[in-house]
């Protein structure tokens, strides 16, 4: 009897068809048609995802095998989908938030010509298709196919307005930095094949089951997990491969919301969550993951303080929140990290879409210094954005509070220092988010009085409202044991995925008194910071003063891009110039052209043989006959024999 989840291939099918129709028919379809096909495809996937989720909730997890993809020697890599708790949760997030963003895009991108509009939706559907492959893949190779696909779509969408060279450069930067990470994933996959003979997630012969039998800090495990983490730093924008994400804001805002907030950048976290048993055993790597995540969270938060472009603040905020998620993974709070992925998808997508609404209403102005007082012009945007800010800052009972607290408690259990540095980053988050809110919505309107901004149309505000509701209440899926024992629904739901790790590591439980104290203390400090930022930035005045000192360093993003340029890009460019000038032009070209010239020279010389003078021809004939004669008789002049012949 076939398991009904064998039909899981329907989920990626709809976006694929949407991509093909919108892509191939881009010159013929009208904009409403394109918008309907694009959004409808993802909506259908969402409906199937809901059905899959219900199946999984009732205990039906399944690996749906379709065909053998690579079967060489002893290695068998099937094309299969693994439907379990983790993948079904991610499916809901991707298709749900994806549908809302598609609907939003129909209004946001309305100024485009029909064929570019269709191209946009085609790319967006292709992205959803790739991301679905990524989370549904039953082995690392299928996941990698989706991994590469989302990198490609990210490039295509960031460089969507391709006539602008700086946007193209941003797209190239994103793709190349992703590629560097991809090398890490590939090497890890090769190592896995060599060590385990398989790349499957599940099953007795799968990677995870075999890895569970290895010792703690086994060198192969540490190597594989480190390489996978390198891939995650590229895809999920951690130090050192994060600089592409702020530049990726060159793409349309809905793209930033979907790809760089809710889905693609969470691929790294999905991969590590899937491989959790390996990370639990490879303790050294987990420490590296936690430290890199924490460092990224802090550095990105400091940069966000001094950015004036609304999208750049949100971009650095994303990098910082991803750092939090990696901190969660590194300390073993896998459920907390996945929980934060979910809540972050809601409130960050909400804020990006809200920023898009503001940009749209302010006629494509993105500099916050020209905003101010927008709350009376765009009330819906303002209320939903406020909810997003409250969620990300960790104000109690909004979604971010529960997920962030879970990660921070996990960090405290590992090492209190991690907790306090993480709390510092959370405070910075609250500050710069309310700086953004204050500069944009509060105070006096600093823009052009003659072109007042307008609220956005329903297709844009409806997704904002839906996401705001989710950002407000999604936290209640994960009520910690502190408030009500056994009420953490998400932990219960995801426990089969993480049970291997849970068995191995005895998580130290923090006693409830400490936990209450930390929670109340952190909340109080966060609220104080929010109040400070609110009052400071609602009175913001535009001034022409240049930033000085630390402010300037932060505004210039710690000069990281400049450092990379000097240390990596220029030397590579010089190496390339060397290879071109010396090796290619002087060496190889001379060799190849020399062959040609040599042949021409030789043929010129041979031409002299055909002089037309008969005497020369006869001479050559005679000479040749003599040579053949000698060769034919084996020309070994044996002088003693010749002498004896003459002597007779």
């Amino acid at each position, binding site marked *: 009897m076939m398991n009904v989840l064998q039909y899981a291939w329907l989920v990626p099918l709809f976006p694929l068809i949407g991509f093909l129709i919108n892509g191939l028919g881009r010159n013929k379809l009208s904009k409403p048609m394109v918008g309907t096909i694009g959004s409808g495809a993802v909506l259908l996937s969402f409906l199937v995802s809901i059905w899959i989720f219900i199946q999984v909730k009732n205990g039906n997890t399944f690996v749906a095998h379709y065909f053998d993809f690579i079967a060489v020697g002893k290695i068998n890599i099937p094309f299969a989908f693994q439907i379990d708790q983790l993948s079904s949760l991610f499916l809901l997030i991707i298709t749900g938030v994806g549908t809302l963003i598609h609907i939003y895009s129909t209004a946001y991108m309305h100024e485009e010509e029909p064929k570019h509009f269709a191209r946009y939706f085609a790319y967006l559907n292709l992205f959803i298709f790739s991301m679905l492959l990524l989370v549904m893949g039953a082995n690392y190779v299928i996941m990698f196919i989706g991994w590469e696909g989302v990198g490609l779509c990210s490039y295509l969408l960031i460089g969507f307005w391709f006539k602008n060279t700086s946007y193209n450069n941003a797209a190239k930067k994103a793709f190349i930095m992703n590629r560097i990470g991809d090398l890490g994933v590939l090497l890890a996959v090769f190592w896995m094949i060599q060590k385990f003979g398989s790349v499957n997630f599940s099953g007795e012969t799968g990677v995870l089951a075999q890895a569970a039998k290895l010792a703690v800090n086994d060198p192969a495990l540490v190597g594989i997990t480190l390489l996978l983490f390198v891939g995650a730093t590229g895809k999920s924008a951690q130090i050192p491969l994060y600089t592409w994400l702020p530049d990726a804001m060159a793409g349309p805002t809905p793209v930033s919301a979907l790809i760089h907030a809710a889905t693609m950048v969470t691929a790294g976290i999905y991969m590590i969550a899937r491989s959790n048993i390996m990370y639990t055993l490879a303790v050294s790597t987990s420490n590296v993951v936690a430290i890199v995540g924490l460092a990224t969270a802090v550095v990105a938060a400091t940069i966000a303080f001094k950015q004036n472009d609304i999208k750049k603040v949100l971009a650095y905020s994303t990098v910082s929140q991803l750092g939090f998620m990696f901190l969660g993974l590194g300390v073993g709070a896998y459920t907390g990290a996945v929980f934060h992925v979910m809540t972050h998808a809601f409130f960050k997508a909400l804020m990006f879409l809200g920023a898009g609404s503001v940009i749209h209403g302010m006629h494509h102005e993105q500099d916050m210094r020209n905003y101010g007082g927008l709350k009376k012009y765009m009330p819906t945007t303002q209320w939903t954005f406020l909810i997003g800010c409250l969620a990300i800052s960790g104000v109690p009972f909004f979604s971010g509070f529960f997920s962030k607290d879970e990660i921070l408690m996990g960090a405290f259990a590992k090492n209190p220092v991690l907790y306090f540095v993480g709390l510092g980053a959370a405070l910075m988050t609250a500050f710069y988010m309310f700086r953004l809110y204050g500069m944009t919505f509060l105070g006096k309107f600093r823009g052009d009085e003659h072109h007042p901004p307008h609220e956005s149309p329903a297709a844009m505000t409806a997704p904002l409202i839906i996401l705001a509701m989710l950002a407000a209440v999604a936290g209640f899926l994960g009520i910690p044991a502190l408030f009500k024992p056994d009420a953490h629904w998400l932990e219960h739901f995801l426990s089969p995925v993480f049970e291997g790790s849970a068995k191995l590591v005895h998580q130290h439980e923090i006693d409830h008194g400490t936990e209450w104290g930390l929670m109340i203390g952190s909340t109080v400090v966060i609220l104080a910071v929010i109040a400070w930022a609110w009052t400071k930035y609602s009175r913001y005045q535009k001034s022409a003063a240049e930033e000085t000192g630390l402010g300037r360093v932060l505004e210039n993003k710690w000069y990281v891009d400049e450092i990379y340029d000097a240390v990596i890009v220029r030397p590579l460019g010089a190496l390339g110039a060397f290879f071109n000038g010396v090796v290619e032009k002087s060496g190889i070209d001379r060799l190849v052209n020399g062959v040609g010239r040599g042949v021409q020279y030789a043929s010129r010389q041979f031409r002299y043989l*055909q*002089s*037309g*003078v*008969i*005497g020369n021809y*006869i*001479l050559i004939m*005679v000479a040749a006959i003599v040579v053949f004669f000698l060769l034919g008789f084996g020309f070994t002049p044996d002088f003693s024999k010749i002498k004896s012949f003459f002597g*007779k």
Partner: protein
Amino acid sequence: MPVNYYIYLSIILFCIGVVGVLIRRNAIIVFMCIELMLNAVNLLMISFSKMHYAKAVAADPNTTAGTDAQLFVFFIMVVAAAEVSVGLAIIVLTYRKVHSVDINFLNRLKN
């Protein structure tokens, strides 16, 4: 008379023929030299035939082995005759065009 002398003579005649073909300008003289080469080869064939016959008779007085080359000489003579007739015909026709038998004038293929 030792057969060596005949072989030396034949070689000398052949070399004279070769040199003559290469050096002489008059086409008819070149033909003479070609004939000289062919006749030198005839002489060579006959002297080797005698050499082999002498060796064969020493073993068995009634044998007829070693006389093959004498037959081959006839073939060479036939070929020489045919070749001369054709060659002289070509020279006559060329003379009608160029009014000379100097081979250096036959350079219309040059360059």
